[in-house]
């Protein structure tokens, strides 16, 4: 082995042109790989931290469904075919989740999309998260910054309007929204028809850690959110009728109801109310009693977000919940934070996949160039290799020599590449990369990125470089293996 290393090292040093060509390709390739992957890893971990900490938690429990269900609803074509299912046996699930030692906190949510209008003017669409303020604050304590007003009081209704949404709406109407102002929210669904709710703004807020998707999210009381989400609200307990009520119902003769259709079409005089906004708002506003009855824990929730004490329990949590659902026959499922986070998080990971594809293409090109250079180098050394074979070197020795030389060169280039990449990352980390537009904000997972050298990118780089080295040396090695010791004699003459 010592002699192999000696020959390999000295050949690397002696064949400067070959070493420079191959070395440079590998150094640049590895540098790009390290910087790119560290960059992506930092962004990914930022995205992960940011999503888990600020609006998804580690796990999302939902009712069973097909399709790509996110916190924003279905984000695929199944959105046309189905509504977000409610979580069945919600109370049981909450009880189980609360009993798990690694579950830190939970937060139920409802998601709806609605068109916002004021008076007769339609202002745009917004995303709504129906939440219970106390639980939401406990789950995401650091991300909601109240700029004006506050959450609605328990038992009351209201919307905490996102500052970005507010500003967009303000541009339309030309005045500043303040707590106490009212907005009309309309949702339309092929399944549940049209729902209209008037909701009072109780406060203006912003997500401290946000992005273009989150900027469109406002927090709403769950009662209105359920209505806008098209969920069936109300209790499902059987009514306890008194004996008098039962007797009354029993006395009704169905035939007497339907024996004459005339009664259905009888003209009646109706005193038309003044159909102005105040009238409709006064009717819609008189829902307090019903809404109070729908106050939380009716079981009508779409999402239960779970934050764990540590991310290491994620797999265990998924397994425990799956087992629980299976044992109890509950048609619910867990989804991880990435599914919950929706398109933007997926886009970030998609960009990483594109990057990895580009890296793969670069690696293939590098392999071809390096292979050609090695073939030339090996061809020049046929006499030397033939001599080795003649004086007793087995084929395996020669193969090891060529592979070792390539690996040595790869290893040195890889180390230099990693060091150079690390230096670039250090500089970028100090400077910080500001997202100049939305595209970069998506990639960065926020407005600024300070990339850090990640261990995984270093390991990946060495794996790639060694693979490139091994693949590149395969063909030259095959040529060498066919070299007869006769070549030594022939070249000698």
């Amino acid at each position, binding site marked *: 082995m010592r002699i192999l290393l000696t020959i390999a090292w000295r050949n690397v040093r002696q064949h400067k042109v070959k070493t420079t060509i191959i070395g440079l390709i590998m150094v640049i390739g590895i540098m790009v790989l390290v910087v790119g992957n560290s960059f992506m890893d930092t962004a990914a971990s930022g995205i992960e931290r940011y999503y888990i900490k600020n609006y998804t938690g580690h796990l999302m429990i939902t009712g069973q469904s097909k399709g790509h269900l996110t916190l924003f609803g279905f984000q695929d074509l199944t959105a046309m075919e189905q509504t977000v299912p409610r979580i069945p046996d919600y109370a049981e699930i909450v009880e189980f989740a609360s009993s798990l030692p690694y579950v830190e906190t939970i937060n139920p949510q409802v998601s709806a999309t609605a068109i916002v209008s004021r008076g007769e003017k339609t202002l745009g669409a917004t995303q709504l998260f129906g939440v219970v303020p106390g639980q939401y604050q406990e789950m995401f304590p650091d991300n909601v910054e109240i700029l004006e007003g506050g959450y609605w009081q328990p038992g009351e209704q209201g919307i905490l309007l996102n500052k970005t949404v507010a500003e967009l709406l303000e541009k339309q109407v030309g005045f500043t929204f303040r707590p106490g102002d009212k907005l009309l929210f309309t949702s339309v669904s092929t399944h549940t028809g049209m729902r209209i709710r008037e909701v009072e703004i109780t406060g203006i807020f912003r997500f401290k850690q946000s992005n273009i998707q989150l900027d469109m999210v406002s927090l709403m009381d769950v009662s209105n959110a359920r209505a806008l989400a098209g969920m069936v609200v109300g209790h499902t307990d059987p009514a306890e009728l008194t004996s008098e009520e039962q007797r009354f119902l029993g006395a009704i003769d169905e035939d007497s109801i339907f024996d004459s259709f005339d009664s259905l079409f009888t003209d009646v005089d109706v005193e038309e109310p003044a159909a102005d906004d105040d009238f409709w708002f006064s009717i819609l506003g008189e829902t307090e009693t019903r809404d109070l009855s729908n106050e939380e824990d009716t079981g009508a929730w779409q999402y239960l977000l779970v934050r764990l004490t540590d991310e290491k329990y994620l797999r265990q949590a998924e397994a425990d919940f799956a087992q629980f659902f299976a044992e109890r026959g509950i048609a619910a499922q867990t989804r991880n934070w990435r599914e919950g986070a929706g398109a933007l998080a997926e886009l970030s990971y998609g960009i990483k996949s594109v990057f990895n594809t580009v890296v793969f293409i670069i690696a293939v090109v590098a392999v071809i160039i390096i292979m050609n250079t090695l073939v030339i180098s090996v061809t020049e050394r046929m006499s030397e290799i033939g001599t080795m074979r003649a004086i007793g070197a087995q084929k395996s020795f020669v193969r090891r020599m060529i592979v070792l030389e390539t690996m040595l060169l790869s290893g040195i280039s890889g180390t230099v590449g990693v060091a150079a990449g690390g230096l670039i990352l250090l500089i970028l980390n100090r400077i910080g990369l500001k997202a100049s537009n939305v595209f970069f904000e998506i990639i960065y997972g926020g407005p600024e990125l300070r990339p850090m050298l990640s261990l995984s990118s270093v390991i990946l780089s060495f794996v790639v470089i060694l693979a490139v080295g091994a693949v590149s040396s395969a063909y030259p090695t095959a040529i060498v293996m066919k070299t007869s010791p006769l070549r030594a*004699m022939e070249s000698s003459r």
Partner: protein
Amino acid sequence: MAIVELENVRKVYTLGKTEVHALRGVSFSIEKGDFASIVGPSGSGKSTILNLIGCIDQPTAGTVSINGTITEGLKDRALTDLRHKTVGFIFQSFNLIPVLNVYENIEFPLLLGKNRVNKKEMREWIEFLIEAVGLADHMRHKSNELSGGQRQRVAIARALVTKPEIVLADEPTANLDSKTGQSIIELMKKMNAELNTTFIFSTHDTTIMSIADHVIRLLDGLVVEDTKAAAAAGGLS
């Protein structure tokens, strides 16, 4: 005792559609300790015979026996093993490994074997050979820092380092001036005498062939003379 035996050996090369009969039925034997010279004009089959004895080529017909082993049918690994243990090579163009120094070039064949070698003994043996070929002052020099004669001395030491039964030298003086060539042949003769190693070399230099104690003369792929002498008169000065 014959260390090399060739019996009715034929070798046919195919060059395109043409068949070249390099050897047309060659038979001879070389005894252990011989200082044998294979002579003949270009194309007579000298190199082909050396290739066959060196186990780097196989005959088309006939048998080649090296130290009692018939080479026919041996696989590459066994042939390489036989070469390593039995044959040392001295090439016309020296064929030293350029990245290794004198000591390392001579040491190289010893590192190829499977048997563990006592490092101290190995070092002493290599240093003895370096001393014997007169390169003690150039031990750490690379081949490009040596003259042609010095390089061929390194090649001789390298050929002898594994203590082979046979050393094959393909026109070892062809790339050297006559004086240096003479000194190289004298060195080979000296090693032949001291180590009782069989030397077989090809040449068409009549001065050098006169030193040989066994001359095999070839012409058009046939042995036309096979002469053994007790000693070459006036070969060593």
